């Protein structure tokens, strides 16, 4: 799940300066679960903007706002969206981009949230960063604990000198990722994986923007990602 948090309202108001009518998009997927883009938050945003003299002409909460077809459907059926001076999106950055790409070039689309990380969900309302989306999974060697994600330095060959009594020097309340990897690999009888020297990361697999094309134009031999071999 993509975790989002609310931007400061004054930043949103600054971006809306000079506009009168506003349309709101939420997202019934990740942002709803983060309590940042569901029905309640749309209501709150509507009230906050109305109070400050804006006219909120309508709102939608697509099932997934990062899904172009769903956003397109709203734009087609609700004429008030296109006529609004601006659109405010309570969704992750991918949601904002999706709406911005569907909107006319002349219509400002403004994010109401900051996108923070891709999470594993411990239970409702408790999120922990789960994956850095680095492009080449190292969990195969690290017993399911990601050094890119859980070590602030992203080290690949074991703990740094800052590990203290098994805890991380950057956040002393968190156990060191590499100590956890060590303990788990030991438990699995696979410590040889940790003894092996890991080469530097191939950062070319993560060159942005990345894409995956399973169908349509450009798919086939290039499918998978946008990496171009030298």
């Amino acid at each position, binding site marked *: 799940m993509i975790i989002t948090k609310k931007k400061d309202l004054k930043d949103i108001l600054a971006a809306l300066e000079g506009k009168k009518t506003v349309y709101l998009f939420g997202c019934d997927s990740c942002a709803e679960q983060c309590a940042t883009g569901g029905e309640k938050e749309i209501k709150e945003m509507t009230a906050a903007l109305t109070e400050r003299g804006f006219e909120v002409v309508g709102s939608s909460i697509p099932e997934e706002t990062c899904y172009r077809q769903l956003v397109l459907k709203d734009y087609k059926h609700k004429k008030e969206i296109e006529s609004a001076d601006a659109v405010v999106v309570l969704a992750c950055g991918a949601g904002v981009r999706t709406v911005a790409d569907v909107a006319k070039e002349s219509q400002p689309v403004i994010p109401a949230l900051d996108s923070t990380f891709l999470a594993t969900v411990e239970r409702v309302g408790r999120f922990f960063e789960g994956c850095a989306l680095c492009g080449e999974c190292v969990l195969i060697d690290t017993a399911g604990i990601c050094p890119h994600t859980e070590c*602030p*330095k*992203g*080290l*690949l*060959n*074991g*703990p*740094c*000198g*800052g*590990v*203290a*009594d*098994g*805890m991380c*020097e*950057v956040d*002393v309340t968190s156990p060191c990722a*590499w*100590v956890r990897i*060590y303990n788990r690999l*030991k438990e699995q009888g696979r*410590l040889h994986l*940790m*003894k092996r*020297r*890991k*080469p*530097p*990361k191939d*950062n070319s697999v993560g060159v942005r923007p990345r894409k995956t094309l399973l169908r349509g134009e450009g798919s086939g031999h290039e499918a998978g990602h946008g990496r171009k071999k030298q």
Partner: protein
Amino acid sequence: MTEKSKLQKELNAGKFVITAEICPPRGTDTSVFIEKARLLKGKITSANVTDNQRAVMRLSSLACSALLLKEGVEPVFQMTCRDRNRLAIQSDILGAWALGVRNILALTGDHVSFGDHRDAKAVYDLDSVQLVETIATLNAGKNMKGTELRGATDFFIGAVVAPEANPWEPEEMKFEKKVGAGARFFQTQAIFDMDKFKRFFEGSVKFNVKVLGGILLLKSANMANFLNKNVPGVHVPPSVIDELTGAKDQLEAGIKIAARQVRELKKFCHGAHIMAIGQEESVVKIIEEAG
């Protein structure tokens, strides 16, 4: 063949060597830095030049290493993985060699969240094991992509180990990886438990690397208490704190304690690396006191 560094020659000859740390200035005024270098000249074998230590921005360790050479003090060029990607790392290493630097110490580097630029991007394109391997590759006349260099390096490659790390096993694995990657000498983090250090040293003998025990000058009981409270993993023993507290001049007591540690190391170790954090004149006293 280029001449080996004094550090390498003395260690290979079995001499007990002493190195110390000098910290670059927070600006372009190098007068104090040079003064410290002159103070240490002839007293130590080589001086480590720290690389934006504690993630606080300072004059570059490469430039300061070159300044030391001009003063006739042999530098150990410290390089962390925090601030440069692999292109910058390799080109700075080549630069250091071209300027006459012969010793290099590879470190991970304190995270930017400790420093004065907490909004900086922490790079860590390589880790310390990969950095050691990169230097070894440049020593072999190639860059990381296998391209032949027009002129290789021949650095004496060093790395860091924390003999008192808890848990020890993951640190031990990393130490062995650094050896395997090409590290030939180690400067350790500060020693607080000499018996533990000795056990580490004895275990390291089979790897045929040179080990310099890290000695941290405790300037006062307050400093020792501060370290215990605020620096994770540091455990200054109560007996040492008592010794500092009971002393008339706590700095003098700290110098005595450090000198005693150096004398201990002389009995079995290859050398001592003194970290005095801005107290270079005390380094001289420690060395004289240790005899």
